[in-house]
């Protein structure tokens, strides 16, 4: 189709059209806007317990990936577990920061040992630590076990060793703890975090 269009009329139409469009704001943008991507959309959710205080709130750990064998999961977000009867999804300001507790450069990842009188920490293996704990408990028990009271009745009490259980220990853990230390070794001071 042949529309007669001179340079002058093209400029006229273009200018008037452009001005009108910008003045009245004819906006052909869609009436939708993209919202930020939900960062936990396909993360793996793992239920856990907050390790801080004895209230033991339920938390959900969101880790990258879907547990495929080639994925090394990293915690990307932590929030309260709405199905947990204690906190029902809420968390305190300390519990909300759990991710910083897990993904943290300053987190201890190995056993550190400071010898008596020493001024520095040494990295040790878990085997070394288990052996040393076992040895010291054995030595203390051998030296300090109270087998009988003043009237000659059997006690088998060990008051020189104390045991502290954590607030995240489940019933089975606590059963084993009591079984091993009170029934097994005779430890009297059994504590747990709820009373600290």
């Amino acid at each position: 189709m042949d529309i007669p269009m001179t340079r002058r009329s093209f400029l006229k139409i273009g200018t008037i059209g452009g001005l009108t469009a910008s003045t009245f704001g004819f906006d052909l943008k869609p009436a939708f806007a993209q919202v930020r991507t939900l960062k936990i959309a396909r993360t793996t959710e793992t239920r856990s317990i907050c390790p801080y205080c004895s209230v033991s709130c339920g938390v959900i750990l969101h880790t990258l990936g879907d547990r495929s064998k080639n994925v090394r999961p990293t915690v990307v977000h932590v929030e309260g577990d709405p199905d947990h009867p204690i906190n029902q999804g809420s968390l305190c300001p300390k519990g909300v920061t759990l991710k910083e507790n897990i993904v943290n450069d300053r987190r201890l990842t190995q056993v550190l040992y400071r010898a008596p009188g020493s001024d520095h920490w040494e990295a040790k293996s878990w085997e070394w630590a288990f052996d040393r704990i076992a040895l010291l408990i054995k030595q203390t028990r051998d030296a300090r076990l109270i087998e009988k009271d003043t009237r000659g009745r059997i006690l088998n009490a060990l008051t020189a060793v104390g045991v502290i259980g954590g607030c995240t220990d489940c019933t089975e853990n606590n059963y084993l703890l009591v079984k091993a230390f009170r029934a097994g070794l005779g430890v009297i001071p059994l504590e747990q975090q709820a009373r600290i």
Partner: protein
Amino acid sequence: MAGGTLELRRISASKSPAPGIRQMPTVTKYIDTTTCIGCKACEVACQEWNDLPAETTVQIGTYQTLPDMTANFWNLIRFAEYENGGLHWLMRKDQCMHCEDPGCLKACPAPSAIVQYMNGIVDFQQDHCIGCGYCITGCPFNIPKFHNKTKKVYKCTLCVDRVAVGLEPACIKACPTGCLQFGTKSQMVQLAHHRVEQLKNQGYSQATVYDPPGVGGTNVITVLAYGDRPDAYGLPRNPTIPLAVRLWKDVLQWLGNLSIVGGLIIAALHYLRFGPKAVKEEAQAAESGDEI
């Protein structure tokens, strides 16, 4: 599912889009200042969810984390002391109020930099932001904060990424006392008035719901025990969009548009009525004479 689009109600520096056929409930955050214990779980939950860097805290003589919100810190518990026949310790969660008629959106000159979704959430789109800071002037609550490095403005998004997929905002979820609640506007207003009735029965005769009509109501409503003194909580008594912004956007802009379009129309009418400018023959002769 994740990161879809939301229908818009208002767009900055643009014509309002035509409303669609969908009915979407307006979402609202309820803040009860009387049951807030100032634990700041909401502050931390906000930082965690939005992956905001830690801000160095400032001691200002109260338990308040910072003197004011910053571009990296969108949710601040304000600790105020109010004396009224005894000392009252007031704690209020301060954040974007998500106004029904947002001053920031009205003042913004960058198309699409500030949007209001159909569900009432007012959100800044930093990729369209030109960093002029007019929204800071337009906000009656002094909420938007300028970031010096990125040269953009930031504020609470009401966790639109969570709300868009059907979750509650991060601060609401964290709150251990339940002084933060989330739901539709009508539900939250009902809850707030119920709480105000309770407070009145307990002797707080001035208890009110802070949902200021000057900005068309807000989608973050606050229950105040001392409703006669919103200033004690750091809230403006009757917030409105600043007069300068209203004059500029509602009057001056249209006067300017009118003068441009009016000028064009009059020029066109003049052309139709009188035709192109007739060059006088003498002048033409003189011109051609000059050329020779």
